[in-house]
């Protein structure tokens, strides 16, 4: 094993920067969601606090932090407090391995995408123990529905990502972006189908509408986070938005060519080129998030059996056939 001396200072600074980014990202996304949803519904949205309502999120955050943390009497205290933390921390660790640029990537793991997938599995656990420890039947129902939805949708998620890994031949995220170059994976038919399937299952994994039955504001009071008040709810919220940016970042890296322009590979060295690459990556990722928000306020919520039918009867066969076809193509033509 060739071991170089690890640059601990760089890693610590990068981790701190990443946490700050996650907080800023959530703040911006809350504002974007409220404005976009408002304009879709033909109303102005927040416009009083700060110019265009930009400070609304900061004030809301302060309000959340000032609220009293209520723990129900019958709840299991330690597990109750653990669940929001378990929901919030793994996506941050996963974001540390995403290639925002050629150099702006904290740790380029050889098993990159597998690491991110194993951290996604911890989110399911967080929801389950949140629902269980609340000692509330609505929370339990929401948690059970959410777990059923999440573990069902993990299969087409894995299969569509597997198509990309099979095509590019590596699990390493940096190499996955470089292997696409200018010719993005979505330009191929297998990549396009895999991208659509991945996007839909990504929305289901982060419990975003139209798959947000676990949160189901009009049905189950608030699903698995009914009993959480103040910062506990805030942490779940932050975790959901961080998951959204993580899903979009992975979709950008694997399917949309990462930091490359269409048909142009950006290979320049130097800070200026790196900045351009990071900006292009963020533009693509945030466009995908805009599409997610757009879909939330356009489509009605699906019923639970429709949800599971969609997964088992439509998405899994399609992704399996897509994977097999991609494998046959690679063997026949040579990729």
């Amino acid at each position, binding site marked *: 094993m060739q*071991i170089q001396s690890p640059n*601990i200072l760089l890693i610590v600074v990068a981790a701190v920067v990443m946490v700050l980014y996650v907080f800023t990202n959530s703040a911006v996304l809350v504002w974007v969601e409220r404005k976009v949803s408002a304009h879709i519904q033909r109303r102005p949205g927040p416009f009083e606090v700060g110019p265009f309502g930009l400070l609304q999120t900061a004030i809301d955050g302060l309000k959340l932090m000032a609220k009293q943390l209520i723990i129900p009497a019958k709840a299991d205290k330690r597990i109750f407090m653990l669940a929001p933390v378990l929901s919030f921390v793994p996506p941050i660790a996963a974001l540390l391995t995403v290639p925002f640029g050629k150099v702006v990537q904290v740790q380029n793991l050889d*098993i990159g995408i597998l690491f991110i997938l194993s951290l996604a599995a911890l989110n*399911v656990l967080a929801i389950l123990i949140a629902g269980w420890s609340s000692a509330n039947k609505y929370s339990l129902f929401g948690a059970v529905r959410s777990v059923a939805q999440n573990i069902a949708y993990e299969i087409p998620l894995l299969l569509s990502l597997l198509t990309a890994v099979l095509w590019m031949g590596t699990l390493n995220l940096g190499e996955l972006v470089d292997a696409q170059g200018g010719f993005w994976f979505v330009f191929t038919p297998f990549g396009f189908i895999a991208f659509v399937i991945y996007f839909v299952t990504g929305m289901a994994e982060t419990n975003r509408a139209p798959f947000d039955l676990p949160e189901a504001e009009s049905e189950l009071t608030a699903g698995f986070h009914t009993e959480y008040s103040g910062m506990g709810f805030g942490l779940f919220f932050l975790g959901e938005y961080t998951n959204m940016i993580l899903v979009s970042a992975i979709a950008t890296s694997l399917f949309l060519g990462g930091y490359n322009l269409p048909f142009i590979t950006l290979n320049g060295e130097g800070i200026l080129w790196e900045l351009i690459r990071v900006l292009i990556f963020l533009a693509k990722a945030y466009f995908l998030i805009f599409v997610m928000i757009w879909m939330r306020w356009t489509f009605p919520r699906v019923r639970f059996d429709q949800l599971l039918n969609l997964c088992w009867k439509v998405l899994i066969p399609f992704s399996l056939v897509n994977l097999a076809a991609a494998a046959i193509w690679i063997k026949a033509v040579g990729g």
Partner: protein
Amino acid sequence: MDITFSSDLSAYVAIADVTFIAFIAMTLAGGLVAILAKQLIHAVLGLIISLIGVAGLYAFLGNYFIASMQILIYVGAVSISMVFAVMLARPPEEVKQKSMRLATKIALGVIVGLFTAATVGSAVFAHRWSAAAKVTSGDTPVEIGIGLLTRNVLAFELISLVLLIAIIGSVVIAKRGRGTGKTVGGEEL
């Protein structure tokens, strides 16, 4: 084979040692909670902590792929099924556990401890384990995949058959349970 590092990495090796001790503590503490907890959900959570600790130990052994698979399979699937089953089955052993007398427990603990000590003393520490010449390093998924499809292909096919039978069997068993006897409070989940 002994792992050695050059001397300018001594601070990092010390940090790695401390992290290693932390993972071992996580594994053993989780195991203790898993077998001694009174509430079943605490036992499952202890098991989860122990599994994450073992994944860390796999990473220390140099095989990050197997560490990821440990978390994906055990923590991501098996543990969640267990928590689900605990939530659905609500076993009354939480309420009144017909446990053994203290004397029986102590006797059992002593027997298991003697067994452990005998195995350790005779097999592990009395032998000097030496390394053979290295042929391949199984760190990457590529080599494991090649091995699975060339040398171990029979085991690979058999385990896919076993998993298929397990899936079909568990669906059939859980399905047949409905309709005979009462369901839990009439809920259908």
